[in-house]
């Protein structure tokens, strides 16, 4: 039974091994070729092996050295921040910059412990005006301002 005494090193190592193995499996479809005439699979294969070796050493070190436990994952900021951005990306083209900005700002603000809905809404409206002014009118980026313009 191995004991994980340095979780950060161990899990980082495990992650690198996993990426390395994944690379080699996915890359097995590509022609290897020879050193003189490398196929598309050659360089990824080298990198995959390198990553497995590095990851294995790191993981091994995770069972030999001691280190602090893994820090906690805080789900709220992670999910809310990334979720609101993805939402923005999905709706901006048909809802327009103005409304999507308000939605993004209000949604993203909820990630903070000090979320104040009314303040977020005001910030959203101000930033929407700014975004339309700077990006659509000023920089002429190809984005609709209102819904149904595309």
């Amino acid at each position, binding site marked *: 039974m191995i004991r994980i005494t340095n979780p*950060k*090193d161990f*899990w*980082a190592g495990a*992650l*690198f091994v996993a990426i390395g193995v994944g*690379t080699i499996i*996915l*890359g097995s479809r*590509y*022609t290897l070729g020879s*050193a*003189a*005439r*490398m196929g*598309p699979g050659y*360089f*990824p294969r080298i*990198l*995959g092996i390198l*990553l497995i070796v*590095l990851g294995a050493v*790191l993981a091994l*070190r995770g069972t030999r050295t001691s280190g602090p436990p*893994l820090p906690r*994952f*805080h789900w709220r*900021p*992670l999910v809310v*921040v*990334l979720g*609101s*951005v*993805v939402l*923005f*990306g*999905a709706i*901006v*083209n048909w809802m327009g*910059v103005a409304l999507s*900005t308000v939605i*993004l*700002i209000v949604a*993203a*603000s909820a*990630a*903070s*412990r*000090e979320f*104040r809905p009314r303040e*977020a809404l005001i*910030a*959203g409206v101000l*930033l929407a005006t700014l*975004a339309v002014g700077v*990006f659509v009118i000023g*920089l002429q*980026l*190809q*984005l609709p301002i209102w819904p149904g313009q595309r």
Partner: protein
Amino acid sequence: MELFSHLATGFGVALTPINLLYALIGVLLGTLIGVLPGIGPVATIAMLLPTTYALQPVSALIMLAGIYYGAQYGGSTTAILVNMPGESSSVVTCLDGYQMARKGQAGTALATAALGSFFAGTCATVLVAAVSLPLSALALKFGPAEYFSLMVLGLIGAVVLAHGSLLKAIAMIVVGLLLGIVGTDVNSGVARFDFGIPELSDGIGVVVVAMGLFGFAEIILNLESTEQRELITTRFKGLWITREQFKLAAPAVLRGTALGSVLGVLPGGGAMLASFASYSVEKKIAKDPSQFGKGAIQGVAGPESANNAGAQTSFIPLLTLGIPENAVMAMMVGAMTIHNIQPGPQVMTSNPGLFWGLIASMWIGNLMLVVLNLPLIGIWIKLLAVPYRLLYPAILLFCAIGVYTVNNTSFDVMQTAFFGLIGVLFAKLECEPAPLLLGFVLGPMMEENLRRALLLSRGDPTVFATRPISAGLLAAAILLVLVIALPNIRRQREEAFQEA
């Protein structure tokens, strides 16, 4: 002299109204994000890259470069006034700068930092111009084997001089190299690691990776911490530097400039390393080291000059060899590629206006910073009063619009969110994202040079060891790893980072 005619060309380009305008925008934005914690130059450059499509390449690069060194000025302002480093390169400035401010010498500290930075920036600009000619000439003689070895040395050097676990950093480089080769292979036309997604056959964008790892992840991690920012307003009493202070500060500026210029050129160097190194040097050679941490003017003058010199000279490897040595320079590679300029020694001859214009603009930008920064301090301080709960959604918005407009697809936004998730995961495992970005940018170039080198040698891998320059470069890389792996040196390195 040839150098002066080149510089004249450069100033001719940099002094056109449009380029002056973009230099101004760059340094102002740089100062702004330097003042604001939680957003650094890498994320800002990523954010602004898409908006530079329509610009002339030289204007775009002038603006983006301005962000980097402008951030050094902005970072020191907040370090001195509110004991909060806006940028990692001004962490050490807090130590004595803030103490000076508490003694009512905030103005003196700010003036010392600004003038020291300007002096350093001027020297470094001349150095960049002077070193570029011979280095480019040398680099043009490099074959694929030399280039491959140079990149290995560059990548290894970049992680050896950075802090944190060496093993993790090297693994992060490899992950970056792998991400870099996603997309259609130029030689065979095979779409690699595209997971059947057509958008990925063009590869992953540098904006996507940088914004995810440096922008989104940073915001998420900031939101996790409960730490409250406190605003301490310090009184301001003129910008005078007394004769005694000048006598102490001037040599520190000179030493900081020299140290910063050298460390800036080294792979992995740049502004942060330079400022840390300068602080420990100043503390070691000071007549009265006990003054350090209590408002020693050398502790502001040295590191502030060093970080600006380092920020500037870190352009040398990029401009002459085409090799980025830190994450910001990796973004500059991305910017050049977007504008169809292949970074490398040929830029100087094929695109002299761009090359010398960029160098000249650095000096102009520094001048703008000195002139503008001190009067604008009041505004920057007011900005600091904006609470983070209002700041981060705005940053997210600019990031999201920036990423979306690269290709006008929501797929890019999703990819960026994915890299944000990866960035948080890596941060929890204490894996630095900077080596990954370097590897990502260098990935395709490295594969191409490896291929060519081995094609020329008919598959004989000893070519890297038998060609003298290549062998020397590889030996240096191996030496670096061995040196850092020795226990007592590793301990010293950790101490150096802790002390600062």
